[in-house]
């Protein structure tokens, strides 16, 4: 079970870790120190995730069994919008410090809430299993360690290159993350039939299989989908185009 625990917790932590590294790097590029905001947001996000994990059963049963998906969809749509606003103020010549900190902080809180609540639910299932719990927790710590290290490496890489280039790479990567979030959002709405699903547009699993280790990491970092529907594909392209336009106009 230790390996399963490492993989599950690592894939959950990876997205949050990459997102935090990018936001932190963005603040650095415009001369702000985001340490205190990031730490506070992580703590608030963790408290929110525990509340969500505890009440998830009841949340799921609301809105005729659509509660879980609606909550995820709302958090994801907020994240996408906030990432765009954050990126705008990151690239804009005149930055707005309070908006930059507020958007960045909310992105971290929403992201941590989503990712950590799943880890909490997973561990809750083993809380009374004294045989497996130690190895799961140890595996979880390794997963957190690897995921966090990846974020730190990305942050130092972005800090190593020039500020202008770093800003553009940061916003480009944020755009990729936001585009990936949009496909996940559509998927949640299709899952509970709020949006009708269609057959898959293409199948790229022969290039990268989602169940492989690379596939899982690609999914965790930029929500790689090997079998998207037309609507997911269009949303992905739309978000990418929006970020590209922002980079061309402001970058």
């Amino acid at each position: 079970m230790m390996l399963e625990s490492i993989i599950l917790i690592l894939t959950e932590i990876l997205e949050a870790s990459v997102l935090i590294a990018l936001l932190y790097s963005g603040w650095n590029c415009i001369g702000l120190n985001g340490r205190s905001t990031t730490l506070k947001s992580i703590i608030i996000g963790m408290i929110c995730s525990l509340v969500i994990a505890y009440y998830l059963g009841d949340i799921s049963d609301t809105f005729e069994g659509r509660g879980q998906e609606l909550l995820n969809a709302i958090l994801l749509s907020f994240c996408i919008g906030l990432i765009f606003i954050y990126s705008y103020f990151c690239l804009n010549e005149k930055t707005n410090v309070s908006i930059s900190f507020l958007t960045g902080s909310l992105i971290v809180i929403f992201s941590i809430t989503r990712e950590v609540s799943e880890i909490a639910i997973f561990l809750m299932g083993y809380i009374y299993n004294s045989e497996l719990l130690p190895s799961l927790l140890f595996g979880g710590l390794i997963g957190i360690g690897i995921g966090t290290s990846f974020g730190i490496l990305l942050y130092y890489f972005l800090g190593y290159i020039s500020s202008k280039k770093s800003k553009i790479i940061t916003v480009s990567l944020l755009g990729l993350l936001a585009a990936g979030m949009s496909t996940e959002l559509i998927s949640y709405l299709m899952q509970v039939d709020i949006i009708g699903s269609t057959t898959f547009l293409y199948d790229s699993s022969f290039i990268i299989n989602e169940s492989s280790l690379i596939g899982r990491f690609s999914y965790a970092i930029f929500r790689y989908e090997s079998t998207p529907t037309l609507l997911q594909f269009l949303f992905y392209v739309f978000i990418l185009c929006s970020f590209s336009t922002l980079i061309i106009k402001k970058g």
Partner: protein
Amino acid sequence: MIRQNILKFTLLFLLCSHSNICFAEVPIIEIKIKNHLFYPAEVNVPSNKKVKLLVINEDDTPEEWESYELNREKVIMGGRKSYIFIGPLSPGVYNFFGEFHPKTAQGIILVK
């Protein structure tokens, strides 16, 4: 003018293809989770039809029903049930598994 027509056509196409206005009844298929195993582990589904999977978790512990091929994931808490819509699907085999117990909770959806 041409651009406007293309936009109208695209919006109409998206509205029709993703509309929820459906008059046919959606078949419901039950999947139970017991001792971290799926019952049945092999689910038959008609091709090109939307299907509602009703997942009942009879274990005390939570499970996440997940399928990479179907782009679906849902946490089902212990002793609770929930549903997931899948399809329309092309004929083939689609794997699903329980992310919290992947060694035992494995299943396939056979689309014919």
